[in-house]
């Protein structure tokens, strides 16, 4: 068994420089596409039209005027289209990408603000894909509240002058001091008038993090493609002879899987190293939150276990090189597409999203995403191990049949 394993390793190792080169080219290409995509996304933010929903307590007349004013036009660099809708509807619309964010006005905000009382913070909910928009909205809300406070203060000083002019200034200075202090307090603490909730593109990730996970799954999947030359057999004479000498098909498959897995792990390590360097030198990728190396390694290893098993299954199913290459390429790209590795999964209809959650590449993407989101990873880890066993479990009887020549 050891001899066959090392021969397989030698065989796979011969391909390693070529696969490393191909992976590097693929990585560079994908890195450039990704950095271009993220950079253009940030540039577009400055000019695109955004729809924001206002929900919550919007009954106040002054607030309605304000909303109407925003709907008529505003002077920020963004073109914001404001619509009113219930919180539930706004939440669904945000998930579907129909709106960019929604604002929840707390109960009695206007009344409390005008009376100078403290009020619940305004909540605005946005997806991680428009982080720049979050900053914009923070500024807008802060400016808006500042203006309310400043104009109210002007009004109160004007009122004080009016009272003094008409000799009604008993205790007016004391009241003015208290009022001024309350306004000062509101202005100083104006940042606390909002709080942020981020839904994320998917799995709670920012666009950059999401695409890094998705691109990694695509890269790791395609990395196995050159090994078609090693593992696709048209002639089962060697497995037959090995079997006749007591070296069972199960052991043969495990040796080949082990050798392939080892090469995939080496390639995975190479990929991690190059990606780490790329993240440092490509400024367009600075939106990515780089997780700890240990976290990444722990997430990538089970993904490679699953993908190596998938490769073995696809290569075993293939009858010749051409069909094998086509099956592997379209099979993995198809799986990656449906799993949201090419477009964000939230852009797909719900049935596809449910399907993606159970597909091997979907589980792989989710498993990698837990390194960024620090979410629980045991479920996806179990899914990956289960798929590894299922793929090898299907490959084995197919291989046994082919070795025995029963597929004729």
């Amino acid at each position, binding site marked *: 068994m050891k*001899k*066959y394993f090392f*021969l397989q390793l*030698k*065989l796979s190792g*011969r391909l390693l420089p070529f696969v490393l080169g191909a992976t590097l080219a693929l990585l560079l290409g994908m890195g450039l596409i990704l950095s271009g995509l993220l950079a253009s996304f940030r540039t577009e933010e400055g000019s695109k039209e955004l729809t924001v929903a206002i929900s919550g307590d919007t009954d106040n007349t002054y607030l309605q005027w304000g909303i109407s004013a925003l709907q008529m036009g505003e002077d920020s660099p963004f073109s914001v289209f404001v619509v009113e809708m219930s919180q539930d509807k706004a939440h669904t619309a945000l998930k579907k990408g129909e709106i960019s964010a929604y604002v929840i006005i707390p109960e009695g905000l206007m009344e409390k603000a005008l009376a100078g009382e403290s009020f619940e913070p305004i909540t605005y909910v946005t997806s991680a894909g428009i982080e720049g928009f979050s900053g914009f909205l923070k500024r807008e809300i802060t400016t808006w509240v500042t203006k309310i406070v400043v104009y109210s203060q002007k009004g109160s000083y004007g009122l004080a002058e009016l009272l003094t002019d008409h000799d009604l200034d008993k205790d007016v200075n004391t009241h003015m001091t208290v009022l001024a202090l309350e306004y000062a307090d509101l202005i100083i603490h104006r940042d606390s008038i909002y709080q942020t909730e981020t839904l994320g593109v998917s799995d709670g990730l920012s666009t950059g993090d999401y695409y890094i996970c998705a691109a990694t799954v695509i890269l790791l999947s395609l990395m196995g493609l050159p090994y078609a030359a*090693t593992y696709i057999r048209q*002639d*089962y*004479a*060697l497995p*037959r*002879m*090995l*079997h*006749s*000498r*007591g070296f069972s098909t199960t052991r043969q498959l495990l040796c080949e899987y082990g050798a392939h897995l080892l090469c995939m792990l080496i390639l995975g390590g190479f990929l991690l190293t190059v990606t780490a360097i790329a993240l440092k030198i490509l400024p367009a990728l600075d939106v990515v939150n780089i997780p700890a190396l240990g976290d990444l390694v722990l997430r990538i290893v089970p993904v490679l276990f699953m993908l190596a098993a998938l490769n073995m299954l696809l290569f075993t199913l293939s009858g010749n090189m051409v069909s094998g290459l086509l099956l592997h390429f379209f099979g993995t790209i198809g799986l990656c597409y449906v799993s949201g590795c090419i477009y964000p999964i939230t852009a797909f209809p719900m049935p596809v999203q449910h399907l993606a959650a159970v597909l091997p590449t979907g589980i792989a993407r989710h498993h990698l995403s837990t390194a960024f989101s620090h979410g629980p990873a045991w479920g996806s880890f179990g899914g990956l191990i289960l798929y590894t066993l299922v793929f090898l479990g299907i490959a084995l009887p197919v291989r046994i049949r082919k*070795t*025995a*020549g*029963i597929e004729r």
Partner: protein
Amino acid sequence: MKIQIKDIYKKYGSKPVLQGIDLEVEAGNCVGILGSNGCGKSTLLSILAGIQPADKGEFSFDGTDLFRYPRERSRLVGYVPQGTPLIEELTAYDNLRLWYSKADLKTALNSGVLQMLGVDKFLKVPVSKLSGGMKKRLSIGCAISERPPILLLDEPMAALDLSCKQNISQYIKAHKAQGGIALISSHDILELELCDSWYIMKGGRLTPFAYTGNLDELIKNL
């Protein structure tokens, strides 16, 4: 020392391939199994080699049931399947190392069967660059690493040139001379001439055939 094959049956789905194969071969003998394509010759050899199970039947060597004792079978039976049981990308030496220990390989190359097969002349060459004849000689060299007394050869000389055929013939003659047994599935006249007895497989059964060198008669019986 002899092998006994008794009442072997095999079906693929509902299609019967072997329907009661009986054969007995004494030591130092070579048996040729003839038959048209797809008649079940390769299936019989693969069953005897343990690649697939028989639905029914016995295969014994000197009273030892080789279907029951697979370890014994893999030690006693050397099987050369159709095709190339080699790793094309690696050298002849790497392929031999899969089957031989370092010391045994050295002995076999210096004075043993591998030298007789002429394998020592292309050890460093990748298998993909070897001719069909060289590959077949190397395949036989790999199959006999344990010096098995029983050889199962599935069309060993198919599409080889004359000098390669002669090389393999010499090895089979030497194997017989040492008391070995060979079962050859064949279409080749040279292979037929190596054999001591001949059987024709037809309808899943083996029928003895007295080959006299008359090809017309042989073709009529296939």
